[in-house]
Structures are given as C-alpha cells and as structure tokens.
C-alpha cells in the first residue's frame, strides 16, 4: 500500500478519536502474510495500526453482527470509526440501506487500495515465508529457508482486485488517495474479464455434479455464515435453533443437510450480497461459494436493476414489490 496513506490515516484517527469511541482497523498478526482486524478502544493503540496489501478482511462484519460482542452500533455509546477499502464500502452502504447501522454514529475513513494479495496464490508461488514487504508494484520476500525473492504484485492479487471492481466509493467521510494518475493507469493494467458463473455455461447434470462435489466437502463450521456482512441475524440464526419443531436442518454432516444449509443461507442473504467474496476466502475446505452469488446477482441486475451496495436509497428487491410484474 502507499506508505503515506498509512501515516495520514493514523494522523487523522488520532485527531478524530474521542472518549469511548471505537476504531476498527487492521494490525500485524505476527504471521508475515496475515494482517488481522483490530478493535481499538484507547488512543495509544492507534500506532499499532498497519495498512498494507494483506488487509483482506471486510471490516463491515463487525458493525452489525454480534449482539453479545458489545460492538454492535446501538450498544456502543460513542461513535465507530472504520478504515475501509473502496470494495468494503459497498457492504457498509448495503447495511445502512438495510437499517443495520446507524449512519450518523459511523465515521467511514476510506483509503485508495492498490490490490490485496491472495495468500493461497502467494503460497503457491513463494512457498512458506519468513518475511514479506510490498513497495509500489514489487513484492520482496524471504522464504523460511532464508532465500530471498522478488515477484510483481500483479501476479499474486485476488481475482476480485484483478477484475478491477474498486471504483470510487458511493459515500465516505474521508477518502485518502495516493496519486490519482498512478492509480488510474495501474487499474487499467488489470484487464482480467469477469469470471462467468458456472451456472450459465454448464448443463444441469454437470452443474448438479459440481454442486454435489463442492458441498460434500462442507464441514458446517459456519465460517461462511459468521464472516458474511449480509448475514446479520447474529446469535438467533435459524440454524442455531434446536431441532423440530423450529429448527430446519439436522446437525448431521452429509450432502443433503449441507445442501439445505447452503440453500437456506443463500436465500436469506443473496439480495444484500455485495460480492465481497469473504465466504469463499474463509472456507477451510475451499468451496467456491461465490459461483452461486455471482449467478443470482446477474439475475437481480437484469430483472430488478438492483445491485447491492451501490446506493443506500433503493431497498433490496425482497423488501419491496411492484404491481404487474407477473414474474411467476
């Protein structure tokens, strides 16, 4: 990331921070290629913030999610200051439109991000790392064995960053930009076309085989549900209910229960899914969940002209209706 941005963000946060405010940002985790989210409650912790090309987490998940975590907006007396990448602001905007966050208690500090590294792709290229640093478009690393190496940032970015989906955010309080020209021409270099969801290409039998192969790997650890900003029922989720008469699925882990789990979860969140890709990234079994969300997103845009997170004035399709649509 552009070094000055981190300094400027820290300076601003020190100025903004008041008593019982909360800052949600990132800090070093002790593992070279992992930067972990960081909830700050006192001013002197601001120096530990580190904003780099490994800040992959979508911090909006902490804004509305956990009633018991004492961070949910209404519970917290002061304001919540969030540092966010442009692609994360879409989730925050969608949450505001779903009335999950109280807009005037939120201060959104957005910084220009020149791409987040996909750690799985990085590991395939560099193997296990002892140290890694990124400056401009170059990644310098040392392997565990002490051997140094250099690769271009472009080769290890996430698909999402390569598809260049980071336009200027719709709404922010502060927006840090490195330098406009360099940012524009770097985005131009990322010409990878949008990955078409598999549902459009394959026939039904083939699609059924892919879905069964993917979802039989699922171990029902709930990582995709708990990391998803659009899935905000927190601890009263239908899957946490006891079995019948209320609970819908059995605790058993097999293809049919996994398929029902993902069907119901998908149906609950797809209208406010902004395609942040966190569910696919965090899955310990590597299930490609974003295929499903990309497919239905196209339908929402085609049928209702709605794409989640683009504006907070339009309600998501399932919360509104229009006469004479005769869809069914």
């Amino acid at each position, binding site marked *: 990331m552009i070094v000055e941005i981190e300094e400027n963000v820290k300076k601003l946060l020190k100025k903004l921070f008041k008593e019982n405010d909360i800052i949600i940002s990132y800090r070093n985790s002790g593992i070279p290629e992992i930067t972990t989210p960081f909830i700050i409650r006192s001013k002197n912790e601001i120096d530990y913030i580190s904003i780099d090309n490994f800040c992959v987490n979508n911090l909006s998940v902490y804004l509305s999610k956990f009633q018991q*975590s004492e961070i949910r907006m209404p519970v917290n007396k002061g304001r919540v200051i969030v540092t966010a990448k442009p692609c994360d602001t879409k989730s925050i905007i969608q949450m505001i439109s779903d009335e999950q966050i109280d807009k005037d208690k939120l201060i959104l500090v957005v910084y220009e991000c020149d791409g987040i590294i996909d750690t799985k792709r990085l590991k395939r290229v560099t193997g*296990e*790392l*002892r140290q890694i640093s990124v400056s401009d478009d170059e990644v310098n690393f040392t392997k565990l064995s002490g051997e140094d190496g250099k690769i271009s940032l472009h080769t290890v970015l996430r698909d999402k960053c390569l598809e260049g989906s980071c336009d200027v955010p719709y709404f922010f309080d502060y927006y840090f930009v490195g330098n406009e020209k360099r940012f524009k021409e770097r985005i131009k270099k990322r010409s990878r076309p949008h990955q078409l969801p598999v549902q459009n290409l394959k026939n039904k039998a083939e699609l059924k085989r892919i879905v069964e192969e993917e979802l039989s790997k699922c171990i*029902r650890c709930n990582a995709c549900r708990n990391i998803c900003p659009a899935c905000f029922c927190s601890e009263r989720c239908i899957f946490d209910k006891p*079995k019948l008469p209320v609970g819908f699925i059995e605790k058993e882990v*097999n293809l049919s229960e996994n398929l029902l789990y993902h069907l119901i979860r998908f149906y609950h969140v797809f209208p406010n899914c902004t395609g942040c890709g966190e569910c696919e990234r965090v899955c310990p079994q*590597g299930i490609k969940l974003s295929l499903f969300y990309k497919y239905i997103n196209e339908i929402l845009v085609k049928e209702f002209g709605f794409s989640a997170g683009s504006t907070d004035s339009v309600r998501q399709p399932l919360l509104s209706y229009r006469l004479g649509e005769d869809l069914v």
Partner: protein
Amino acid sequence: MEEQYRLFKNDLNKFLEILRKSYPKIIGPSLDSEEKEIFKEITNVNELKLDRTIPLKPPKEFLFPQSEELFKFSFKERKFDLKDENFFEKQVLFALRPCDLTAIKYTDTFFTSNFIDVYYSAKRENSLIIGIACEYPSNKCFCTSMGVSPVSSKGSDIFLTNGGTFFLVEFLTEKALSMREQFAGLLKEASLEDATLKNRIEKRTRSLLLEEFDLGKVGEGIERIYEKEELFRKYSDTCVMCGACTFDCPTCTCFDVSDKFLDKDSGKRYRTWDSCSFYNFSLHASGYNPRSRKVERLRQRIMHKFNYTVKQFNLWSCVGCGRCIAVCPVGINIKSIAKDLQREASNENK
C-alpha cells in the same frame, strides 16, 4: 536403540501393497483437484505428496468422524429394539508428522481415561500409525514450543525418516514388530551415518521455524489467569465465533449428540463435532448461558488447550500444528495469545 532399516523409495509401492494385505485402507497426505493438501485414501504411490506443508483438515476424522452413528433404535410391531454396529475397518494412517502423532497420543489418553469411548478405541485399535520426520514446516508451526520435536517418533507404530533416496524405517510397537517379517525383502541394512540422519533433519527443520518460545509456566502455575479478561479480549473482539479453528484442530474432541427418525418408527442417534465457540455450546435449557460473551468462549478454548488439560491429564492439548491460525477467517494468531499468557504467568510467579 531399535534397529533401523533402509527402505528405498522405489520399493515404497511394494511396501504399501504388503501393508494393504492386512490394512485394506491406506490414508495419506495428497492433493485435491485444486492442489490443496488433504488426507485421503491412497490407491497408488504417486498420489502421495510428502514434500508439502501439513493438510489443514487433520487425520482426526479417520479416528473420530465428524458424523458418527451411535446406535439404531426401532419400535416395529410394539417391540423395542436397539443395535449399535460400531462400524470400523482396518486402516493405515500413513506419513503423519510428529504434531499429528502427538495429537493422536492426546486423543488416545482423552478417549480412554475414566470411561472408555468404544467407538474411538475400536477404530484406534484397528489403525496402524506410520509417522514421518517433518521437513516442511509452515510459518504458522510452533511444535517445538509445545515440547514436540520435528523428528519425535512417539505415538507411531512405524517411523520413517527421509534420507534422500531411501527412508530410514524404525519398528516401534508390538503391532509393527509382528508385521516386520512381511517386509523382510524390502528392508536393507542401515549404514553408520544413518544414525545422525535424524539429528541433521531436526536441526534443519528447527532452523526453518519462524519462532520458538517457552511456555513452561503457563500449564501448571497460574490458577487465576482466567480472571484476566483483557488478555483474551484483545483477540475475542475480532473473533467471529465460527467453528473453523476447533473443527480443524487435531486435538479438539467436543461433540454433540442428536437423534433422527429414519422412518415412522425407527431412527438413529448420532454424534457430530461441536465447538465451544458456538453460542449454543453451553446454553442451559432455561435460556441461561454461562458463556454467552465472546471473550468467555475464546477463553474456554485457549485455557482448555494450555491449562485445563495439563491439570487433567498432565498433557498440553495444543501440539503447535498452526492449523487454527491458517483457517481463521480473521487471522487470530494463537502463538501471540500463548506468548501473552506466558508473559502473564511469569509476572504472576514473580
């Protein structure tokens, strides 16, 4: 020192075929369709991938499956009947690293102390454990800080050490010694410098580790460390309380028991993995939950790994494999939590 033999790598296929005669199912480290390391059933030797970091899903699923049927019941024609088939088949867990071997030693102790868990012990008795010295640690590994040496053969029946063109083979338990004759043709004399092979590998692997720290006093000494909530709060604030770390942890053994109807008047009771991070884990029927806050649930996982099991079985139930760091959606680093605990423990005893 048990005798050591050389098994040349091109004889490995024959070695596996002989094994398959008494243990039909051979499970070993391999790659899935997306080049991800997993443990799966090995049909031929080229599927084996021994030069990668450890698979993120531990071998525990082959001894303690995620969904396991306890018994079937039926009320047919007003007669009540109960059957537990306790399904298991003879299997070999091939090429397990010392961290997984130590994890299996812990789960053995856990499942067979005070009451014996018949399902686990049946599978365990019918499994042959073949260990291998670790040469490919990840930057998340910290087994040496948990008292596990990268070449420790404790907990394995047969132990292999990679000597370039051959494996140094040691037969350590009765189960293994009784089978040694069958491999007679493949086992060659070990030479003198093989004796130092293990130390050389240990030194090299230790040099590859990102860090080492001493957790001596965290186990026994400190009684009241759970009262220091701010120690755990720094990490529980960002934790999303999913079950990924506990499901991929080789020593997590918590499970939930549920019933299911198969048809109108018969069904089964089965158990599935459970996680202390889930809200329902300690929820009373009355709705009261002694661990409702995130900090209490994270504290339970950490204290159980580093303190509680030391008092129960005099064993750490963390083997330093680093899987929970690799799978954590928010990158919580259990090494820094352990170091915070250790710093607190040493101030405590001053």
